[in-house]
């Protein structure tokens, strides 16, 4: 029997009071793939990711993660996945080592001291281990958040704007580390991002959302060809402004 797909979403609907944040989306991710989730503000990306992590309950539809239905069966799989976002902070008064110790224990990581040293070396954090997380620069904080996200060597990694507010050099460095992690662990990644350069570099598949719907879903190359554009940013703008593929045909 083949293993369950890392993420399988069927007709997911999430309505907050009367506002539909996600309106009937379906997609499945194959193991070891990197998928970008694109969309403007309010497109439903964060709600989709929150539902995958079991932080929100679907109004209707099904979300299965590594074979477990979310959020009902979340404890079957939460130790096999992790999440990083600059918008979900790490406790600022704790040192980097203390933070990683706490999260390592929560995720049941064996030989934790060795794992912290290993991940600190990989993410260039060794010198920062005994500094308070709140005293670090934005770039350093992002690396710490990434270390937390990788502490349990997750099979499924969810990233929300992983390089937001980083300078181009640090952002490039972070992307390099993510590529390496995916290669080494054959991990599956879902990346919500507004950064098209990042998506073009990391993702072999792009899902474009708009107002809670999936507007398009394909590889970057096929999207570029279909919209007749040279960059994903242009494709994104076409979708966001409702120009779609018909415009290209009209031209």
């Amino acid at each position, binding site marked *: 029997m083949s293993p369950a797909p890392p993420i399988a979403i069927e007709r997911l609907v999430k309505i907050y009071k009367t506002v539909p944040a996600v309106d009937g989306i379906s997609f499945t991710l194959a193991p070891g793939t990197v998928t970008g989730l694109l969309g403007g503000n309010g497109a439903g990306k964060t709600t989709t990711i929150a539902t995958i992590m079991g932080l929100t309950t679907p109004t209707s539809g099904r979300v299965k993660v590594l074979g477990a239905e979310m959020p009902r069966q979340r404890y079957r799989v*939460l130790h096999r996945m992790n999440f990083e976002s600059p918008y979900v902070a790490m406790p600022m*008064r704790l040192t980097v080592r203390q933070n990683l110790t706490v999260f390592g224990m929560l995720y049941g990581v064996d030989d934790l001291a060795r794992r912290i040293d290993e991940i600190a070396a990989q993410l260039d954090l060794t010198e920062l281990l005994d500094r308070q997380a709140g005293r670090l620069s934005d770039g350093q904080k992002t690396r710490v958040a990434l270390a937390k996200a990788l502490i349990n060597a997750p099979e499924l990694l969810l990233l929300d704007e992983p390089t937001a507010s980083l300078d181009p050099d640090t952002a490039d460095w972070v992307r390099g580390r993510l590529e390496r992690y995916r290669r080494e662990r054959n991990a599956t990644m879902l990346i919500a991002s507004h950064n098209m350069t990042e998506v073009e570099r990391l993702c072999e598949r792009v899902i474009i959302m708009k107002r809670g719907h999936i507007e398009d879903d394909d590889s970057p190359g096929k999207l570029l060809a279909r919209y007749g554009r040279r960059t994903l940013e242009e494709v994104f703008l076409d979708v966001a402004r409702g120009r779609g593929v018909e415009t290209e045909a009209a031209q």
Partner: protein
Amino acid sequence: MSGDAESPLSFSPRRAAAMMLRYWYLLRSSWPRLADLIYWPTVQMITWGFLQYYIMQNAGFFARASGTFIGAVLLWDILFRGQLGFSISFMEEMWARNIGNLMMSPLRPLEFIIALMVMSIVRLSIGVIPVTILAILFFGFNLYGLGLALVAFFINLMLTSWAVGIFVSGLVMRNGLGAENLAWSIMFLFMPLACVYYPVTTLPHWLQPVCWLLPPTYVFEGMRALLIEKTFRADLMLDALMINAVFLAAGTLAFLALLQSARRHGSLMQSGE
């Protein structure tokens, strides 16, 4: 991992210890947090201690009732600080915008609650033990002289403080930090009805049954019986224990319902106001 380990009801001492360690690191990292634990109980005990000293010199009944005010102050502090210690540890996660990280980790609600309970005892010990020693030095009132009765009072007050703390934490998780003030003020709702400084018979008849629905009422009545009549009322303590079991179960169920509601409303991703 075994099937049991994947259950929502499974309990991992290591995960609970992780949370205790997290709060211990936090407490250790900030001397103002530590000072704050001791400051207010000390001020309160000294103020009420002098008041009692004055009354004792002027009223025969209160001379017999030696220690009731200071005793009430110290026991009230156990109740209030116990709840505050629980709620503040929880709110540290909200202030640090860390609740999302915790709720997407394998941490179970029960492990989280146990860690918060343990930390409330730690915080209470840091705050109240030095004050009880000061009460001996300043006013000759030895809280530990209550012996086994103190253990019964302490257990009942802690159970109430946890029940209220669990409920308030659920409200803050569901409604965001806009509900934070509840953590500081909710226990004062108990103060007039729990009859901290006066017997239940002082209140109007129609109000007295309401007072007897609150476990701390039994503790404060029990304390007065011990200090004034020199009688330990085990019956009061058992009644309080039974009501506390109901309070604790209700608090935990409310917390789980509010957590469920927070998942429905998407509150766990935003931990601001």
